[in-house]
């Protein structure tokens, strides 16, 4: 795996963001601790100075400046002093009387002094070297007019502070490092699985269509993604199969009429001897070409219906009206073929859809019954409002469809063995299936004993489902159909 790729992954970026937020909070935390510790140490330092100053001022009140000077010298000479305090006593003119601090300008209250001392033994400095120390001191006026300074080296406080800062720096670095490592690890684990998906996709793009994304069965998001992609791939593969099937069917089905057309024209060139012969040939050739064009038109129409663009123009359709009108149209046609077409159509059954396509779908089914049933056959058309859907039935007493072939008759160009020789494109039921699909209509092919019974379950338009389901007082369903009929 390309290591720089990790830097571009979402999970690494999230890890880095996490690390920086985490690091930032550690820094803030350490700063607060540092500030509080510093404050506490300063307080302590000042408290020590204040106590000593108070003690010496007591001496001043007892015996004046000389008494204070004595006390200071006593303290300075004592060995193993617990705290390294600094003193300075000046007379009213500011001259130093005693103490281990250099003379200072007159002052009062807290102040910070910088003074150079010989380096303490045991430090890293060479003997005789000097070091500057910062002393926090407090000055107070004596009763005799002199000034007393008491101070303490702040170096210790600074040392502790430096130690805290150093520890903090280590802690922050460790925290950021750990967060970053965590981020990279999480990222690597994630990437490995994404890589598996990518590899599979690549393989499919390269033409190995049967490849599928491995899933772990844990049901996490990546597993779900893998499963969904696999299902999508299955569907695409099935569609591609059917496209392949359709193209070879088209090629096969158009080859036959085109060969016939060609033969006819060639025969005319070889044998036609009169204008009448040529005219007859041209007549037939045009009919052949029209049949081929009709097949194309039907294919394109099915494709267009399947694309679903017509859904945008769906509107309420009065199915009863469509059925009534088609029954009137086809009853006459059936009668001409010595068949009977009877019907039972419940009024005001409505759906939502494309009137033109629904008309064609039902017309196709009725025509199928008429064309495939022999003279004397009975054809029955019914429409009624069911509990959940409008139920339509188109039944005939013709030869029917064998049960094992019922599933296939909706495929493009599929034709039963016995109808191969009769006219027809083999696309009528494919169109029915396409129209049904976009309208959510369920089609069942049943045995009419004898014959075929096509049962359609057509979604009812909202508000026209079984009258008993209509809330009391609601306006009668299908009120709008009155307008539609009137406008027509």
């Amino acid at each position, binding site marked *: 795996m390309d290591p720089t790729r990790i830097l571009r992954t979402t999970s690494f970026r999230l890890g880095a963001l996490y690390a920086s937020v985490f690091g930032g909070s550690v820094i803030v935390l350490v700063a607060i601790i540092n500030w509080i510790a510093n404050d506490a140490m300063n307080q302590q330092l000042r408290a020590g100075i204040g106590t000593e100053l108070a003690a010496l001022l007591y001496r001043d009140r007892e015996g004046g400046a000389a008494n204070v000077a004595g006390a200071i010298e006593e303290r300075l000479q004592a060995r193993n002093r617990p705290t390294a305090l600094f003193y300075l006593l000046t007379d009213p003119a500011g001259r130093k009387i005693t103490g281990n601090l250099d003379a200072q300008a007159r002052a009062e209250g807290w102040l910070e002094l910088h003074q150079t001392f010989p380096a303490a033994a045991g430090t890293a400095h060479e003997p005789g070297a000097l070091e500057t120390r910062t002393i926090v001191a407090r000055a107070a006026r004596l009763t005799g007019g002199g000034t007393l300074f008491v101070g303490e080296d702040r170096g210790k406080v600074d040392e502790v502070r430096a130690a805290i800062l150093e520890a903090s720096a280590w802690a922050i670095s460790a925290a950021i490092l750990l967060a970053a490592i965590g981020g990279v690890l999480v990222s690597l684990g994630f990437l490995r699985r994404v890589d598996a998906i990518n590899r599979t996709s690549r393989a499919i793009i390269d033409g190995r269509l049967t490849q599928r994304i491995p899933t772990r069965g844990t049901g996490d998001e990546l597993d779900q993604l893998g499963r969904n992609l696999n299902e999508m791939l299955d569907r695409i593969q099935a569609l591609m199969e059917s496209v392949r099937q359709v193209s070879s069917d088209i090629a096969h089905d158009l080859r036959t009429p085109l060969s016939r057309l060609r033969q006819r024209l060639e025969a005319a060139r070889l044998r036609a001897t009169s204008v009448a012969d040529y005219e007859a040939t041209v007549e037939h050739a045009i009919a052949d070409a029209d049949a081929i064009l009709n097949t194309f038109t039907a294919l394109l129409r099915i494709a267009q219906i399947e694309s679903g663009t017509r859904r945008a123009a769906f509107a309420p359709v009065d199915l009863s009206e469509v059925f009534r009108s088609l029954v009137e149209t086809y009853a*006459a046609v059936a009668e001409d073929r010595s068949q009977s077409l009877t019907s039972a159509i419940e009024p005001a059954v409505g759906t939502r859809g494309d009137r033109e396509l629904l008309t064609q779908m039902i017309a196709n089914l009725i025509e199928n019954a008429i064309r495939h049933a022999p003279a004397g056959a009975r054809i029955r058309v019914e429409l009624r409002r069911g509990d959940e859907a409008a139920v339509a039935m188109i039944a005939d007493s013709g030869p029917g469809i064998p049960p094992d072939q019922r599933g296939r008759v909706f495929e493009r160009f599929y034709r039963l063995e016995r109808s191969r020789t009769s006219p027809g494109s083999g696309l009528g039921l494919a169109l029915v299936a396409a129209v049904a699909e976009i309208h959510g209509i369920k089609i069942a092919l049943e045995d009419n004993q004898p014959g075929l019974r096509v049962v359609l379950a057509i979604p009812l338009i909202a508000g026209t489902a079984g009258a008993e389901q209509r809330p009391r007082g609601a306006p009668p369903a299908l009120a709008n159909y009155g307008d539609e009929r009137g406008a027509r």
Partner: protein
Amino acid sequence: MKILLIEDDRETAEFVINGLREHGHVVDHAPNGRDGLFLAAGEAYDVMIVDRMLPGLDGLGIVKTIRGAAVKTPVLFLTAMSGIDERVAGLEAGADDYLVKPFAFSELLARLGALARRPTMTAVETVLTVGDLELDLLKRSVTRAGQRIDLQPQEFKLLEYLMRHAGRVVTRTMLLEHVWGFHFDPQTTVVETHISRLRSKIDRGFDVELLHTVRKSGYSLHGSD
């Protein structure tokens, strides 16, 4: 008739122009949208034939533009075979009829004839008459020589359409579209069956035949004149 053809395909244009000239029509041809629009806006035509797909300005644009400029000339829209949705778009843009390519010339001729007649139809007629045949749109009754004829609703619709186009040829497709609302080619003899029934009702027993079959084209309703 003076006809404007806006069509970029040379072969289709030639096929249409030659056919129309043979039938005695005057045809102007524009091979692209811009020229077509220029002619459509500037000249007076009886009818225009506009192709959907054109270089420059397309058919829809032309129809919209001239309708916007209040040009009332009837327009026949030509669409490609795949364009079942284009028919709706064409009619919405202001076209009066449409024809899917490829088409039979007789179909084109019949539709042009039907379109060109339109302007005279603006007056509201309630009684249509052909010879001694009368159709009353308000009473929804039909009589021939004063004799009442009973028709089924679809037969009435069929006769009404034929009478509105009396003296012209109407094709099978025109009848399917306007009488039955079928925008597809039925696999059974829907038109033939109903025409034959109508014929037996309005012509049987009368000396003069009104409903004629025009070979290879369609049907025509006209008197003896």
